[in-house]
């Protein structure tokens, strides 16, 4: 369980980014975080990940305070899937996934068990065939899946993803979301508990596709919190992004027409 209570944060005193956030994340949930640019989505993720020196408010994971938890312990509870990125060094895919096991075993090498776990994680995202390929030569969608495999190898229950579909093409976006849904249903690498995905997204339709729960954040505050179907509504989206209902209708209509013709 992740408990966020009275969380406020500011990079500089004049500009608060998060204002008094309160919510609880239960096991087995998919949490979609939506909000306009600069509303504090990414900062919230960083706060949960323990990257930020929190002065006001608390983030507890299974009863532990993230700020005071040692990185090794935290890595077993939380894993982070960063946005698709380039590394300066072109490591092999398997080596990237193995990084998820860095806290386990002796400090200078990975054990056979680590290798098995890494391969199993790659297998679960259906990329085992690419294990010995250079990471940089993969497509964007594949790279994102490798990072998910690395997070799986970490063995944590909570997956924190910052805009996971950014930069992916249309089909890869939904392939990735489908993978997330599958993994969420399957459970953790050790298959003990349920995986919990906490992700930010700019696409309301992705939240609807994934289902679960949605947090709408505006100017650092919670605008709405509830099941996706109840929260990500036309009204909710208009309120969140400050767009006029007519404009939203226009967008939805254009979508509908296209799909209508195709189907």
């Amino acid at each position, binding site marked *: 369980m992740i408990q966020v209570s009275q969380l406020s944060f500011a990079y500089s005193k004049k500009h608060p980014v998060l204002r008094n956030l309160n919510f609880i994340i239960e096991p087995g949930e998919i949490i979609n975080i939506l909000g306009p640019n600069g509303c504090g989505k990414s900062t919230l993720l960083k706060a949960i990940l323990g*990257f930020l020196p929190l002065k006001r408010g608390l983030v507890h994971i299974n009863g532990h305070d993230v700020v005071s938890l040692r990185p090794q312990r935290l890595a077993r509870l939380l894993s*982070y899937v*960063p946005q698709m990125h380039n*590394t300066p060094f*072109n490591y*092999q895919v398997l080596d990237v996934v193995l990084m998820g096991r860095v806290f386990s075993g002796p400090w200078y090498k990975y054990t056979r068990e680590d290798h098995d776990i890494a391969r199993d994680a790659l297998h679960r995202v259906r990329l085992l065939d690419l294990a010995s390929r*250079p990471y940089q030569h993969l497509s964007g969608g594949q790279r994102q899946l490798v990072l998910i495999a690395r997070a799986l190898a970490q063995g944590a229950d909570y997956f924190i993803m910052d805009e996971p579909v950014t930069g992916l093409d249309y089909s890869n976006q939904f392939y990735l979301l489908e993978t997330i849904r599958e993994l969420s249903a399957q459970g953790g690498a050790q298959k003990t508990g349920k995986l919990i995905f906490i992700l930010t997204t700019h696409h309301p339709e992705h939240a609807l596709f994934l289902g679960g729960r949605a947090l709408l954040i505006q100017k650092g505050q919670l605008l709405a919190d509830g099941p996706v179907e109840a929260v990500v509504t036309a009204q909710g989206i208009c309120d969140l992004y400050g767009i006029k209902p007519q404009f939203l209708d226009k967008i939805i209509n254009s979508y509908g027409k296209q799909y209508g013709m195709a189907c």
Partner: protein
Amino acid sequence: MIRHLGVALFAIFGAIMVSLLIGRYGFDFHDLMSLSKALLAGQELTMKQHEILFVLIKIRLPRIVAAMLVGAGLAVSGGAYQAMFLNPLVSPGILGVLSGASFGAALGIVFFRSMIMTQILAFCMGCAAVGLAILLSTLVRRSSLLVMLLGGMISAALFGSLTSLLKFLADPNKELPELVYWLMGSFARVNEETLLWIGLPIVGLIIYLSVQGKVANVLSMGDEEALSLGVAVKRTRLQIILAATLLSALTVILTGIVQWVGLVIPHIMRFVVGPDNRVLLPASAIGGAVFMLGTDAVVRSVSTAELPIGVFTSLVALPLFILSLYVNRRNWK
């Protein structure tokens, strides 16, 4: 893995053998073999064999050991620096250790005129320059690696100009040439005593850095990722940077300033063994040792005069560097 190790041992052994045989005092492989046979059998040595033994132990061996330590040290610390700064174009001098050491040496030569003081000051000022770079980076809140690199640039520029000032002040007949030669790097000053008390820490640091690959890989993904993967980022990164700095500063005591090895060797080895630091760091150490032995062999065979090794490292390394860039060009996207 085993295959790599075999190749590495073979390369080192070959380089040592070649280095042992090259030099002004001439003897060949047969002399060496008969000498070792005589030694193993406990026979009386001939006059010639005594001479060979003296040359080997007193002159060539210290030089070979020094060349290997300096090459391995600079290369492995360069590799570690590159991983720590997420940048394959970083060399050990990036935080100012070589500029600081140059200034220290200039101080020793101009004001103290003593070899020991020159070595001690070079080491201390090298460390001080890096300390200044890190101190500058802490001035910025939530500072990043980029700020540390900027600190290094400032520190290197500061000590660079101070060195120039001392060059200007130095006596152009005596101190200036000595300083200039020192800055070019040379194995001529290597002797057994220095080797004994510097060799051990150098070997220790080379081994320490060589086995950091697992963590170095993770740290090379950036602070936030490494932290989320379970590494105590700040402490670990600083530890490795300090070890690499200390190692480069120690090599300066042995040979003065040797450029390029720390940048080029990890690059070339990345082409040979791949970017995985678990293999790359030890491979860089071995590659650096072999490269330095080879370069020294070249230096000793082209001229009977003692040529500065620092000049030749760039002359030998640069074509290799360009070659590795060319061969690796597909990976440079």
